[in-house]
């Protein structure tokens, strides 16, 4: 997607003009496009539109009232703050892990590499349960972080671990090392070489991993629900707040909070699309 796409310069930025001979294209393309649009609308767009419509079913005033109750604001700001913190940690540690997996060489490296995908593969509820097994009240370490904000952070770190690592890894693997070698031959320290030569090449990948991780963290539910205790004003995240509003038969308020989350995610995805296009242009 980003830097490495240069290897196939053939990838057409603008579609190559096609001969429209035989008229086959003329129906196949719109048909496929129509089918895909219909499918996406039925599964994704209509339900989400219904949430947006429902959120203002009782008017804007009640929408505003629903998202500004102290408890909801606390949940939203916890989700936002925890997601930002987690994404920042991921950016640093994820890059280190990617570096160690690509540039280092030690026995068991492939196991470590495999571990990265585990959070993608493991169901979220199981993720929460495993963290609870080690860091909960009956954990063998004697630390009990259950029902604290630390637990929320741990759960979010777990589920977002792969994003930055998997984004940075391939870029790092394909990076031309001649520049680095030249720099260190000229006497630059390892840190300086990394900062001036390697890091700038990694930034788009890191940003993309952070963006995906943030989008995941802000709406996370399954991994948080067992370990956080869902304590209002303390450890209740936005998704749990929405779920509890649904259970309280307060669907309109739930929809209002959902719309706020949707708006944040949408803005983020748009920004990521812009970053991606920008970096693709810079590659060419």
């Amino acid at each position, binding site marked *: 997607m980003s830097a*490495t796409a240069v290897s196939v310069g053939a990838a057409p930025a603008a579609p190559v003009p096609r001969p429209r001979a035989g008229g086959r294209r003329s129906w196949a393309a719109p048909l496929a496009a129509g089918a895909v649009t219909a499918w996406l609308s039925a599964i994704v767009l209509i*339900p989400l539109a219904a949430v947006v419509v429902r959120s203002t079913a009782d008017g804007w005033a009640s929408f505003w009232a629903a998202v500004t109750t102290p408890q909801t604001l606390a949940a939203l700001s916890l989700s936002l703050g925890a997601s930002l913190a987690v994404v920042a940690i991921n950016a640093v540690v994820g890059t280190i892990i990617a570096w160690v997996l690509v540039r*280092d060489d030690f026995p068991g490296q492939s196991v470590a590499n495999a571990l990265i995908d585990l959070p993608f593969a493991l169901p979220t509820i199981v993720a929460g349960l495993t963290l609870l097994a*080690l860091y909960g009240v009956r954990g063998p370490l004697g630390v009990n972080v259950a029902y604290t904000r630390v637990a929320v952070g741990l759960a979010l770190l777990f589920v977002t*671990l792969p994003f930055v690592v998997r984004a*940075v890894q391939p870029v790092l693997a394909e990076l031309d090392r001649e520049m680095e070698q030249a720099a260190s031959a000229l006497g630059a320290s390892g840190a300086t070489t990394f900062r001036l030569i390697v890091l700038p090449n990694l930034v788009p990948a890191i940003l993309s991993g952070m963006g*995906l991780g943030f989008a995941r963290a802000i709406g996370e539910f399954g991994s948080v629900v067992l370990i956080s205790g869902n304590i209002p004003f303390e450890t209740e995240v*936005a998704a749990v707040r929405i779920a509890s509003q*649904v259970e309280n038969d307060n669907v309109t308020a739930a929809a209002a909070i959902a719309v706020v989350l949707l708006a944040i995610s949408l803005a983020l*995805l748009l920004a990521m699309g812009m970053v991606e296009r920008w970096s693709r242009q810079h590659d060419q």
Partner: protein
Amino acid sequence: MTSRYALRAIALGYLGLLVAGPVAMMLWATFSGGVASVWEAIARPAFLHALWLTLLIAAIVVPLNTLFGILCALVVVRHDVRGKRLLSALLDLPLGVSPVVVGLALVIVYGRRGAFGGWLAEHGVRVIFALPGMVLATLFVCIPFVAREVIPVLREIGTEQEQAARTLGASDWQIFRLITLPAIRAGVGFGVVLTAARALGEYGAVAIVSGRLTGRTETLTIHVEERFLAFDMTGAYAASLVLAALALTIFFAMHARRPAPRGGR
């Protein structure tokens, strides 16, 4: 050299504390009560039904989403249709939607008090608290995976071969089957693996629409929570273990199929 060891220690220590440690602990906790009690837990009909239902949902969702994922990728990359960018944004949207919001959306549309749901209920069709709702929820959360894997591959392979084939008089279907499909196979395979992993493990979206009827609408992930609340940690861990085993199978498939390194996914 020391900084290399320091970085290695940070990376491995982090992975150990966050992933390997907790997973190892869960394994240990599962079997601390003996193998027999684990066997008892997974021989329970409630567990077996949950497993069956989970596999059923995956078996419906994975083929459907694979088909539409490939089609989406083709439309986004190959076809020159208006609104393409919107389409590809829409494709990414589920990545940014909380599972809870997915469940909520389905309740609003298909719930008995929703406009459409009311009409369906009159005609005896139950969506919420039944399989269709759970399938719809899983379809939603799994939509992006195949297309997101196939789109970059399609971009990379370009259209030269396809055009050559067209010049030689091949039909669209022949081109797709003989040229495009072999080229994207690895990408599709990885997308299928991701889709299956998510479909088997989805919790939040499904939990809201399932009604949690043990023996009827309880999936494995919901069963894990149900056992947890029944103070049956062995049952919860055993079900988690089966989910983890399924995940691990998928995850080895992932490593076998992970396409050659490319830009960030």
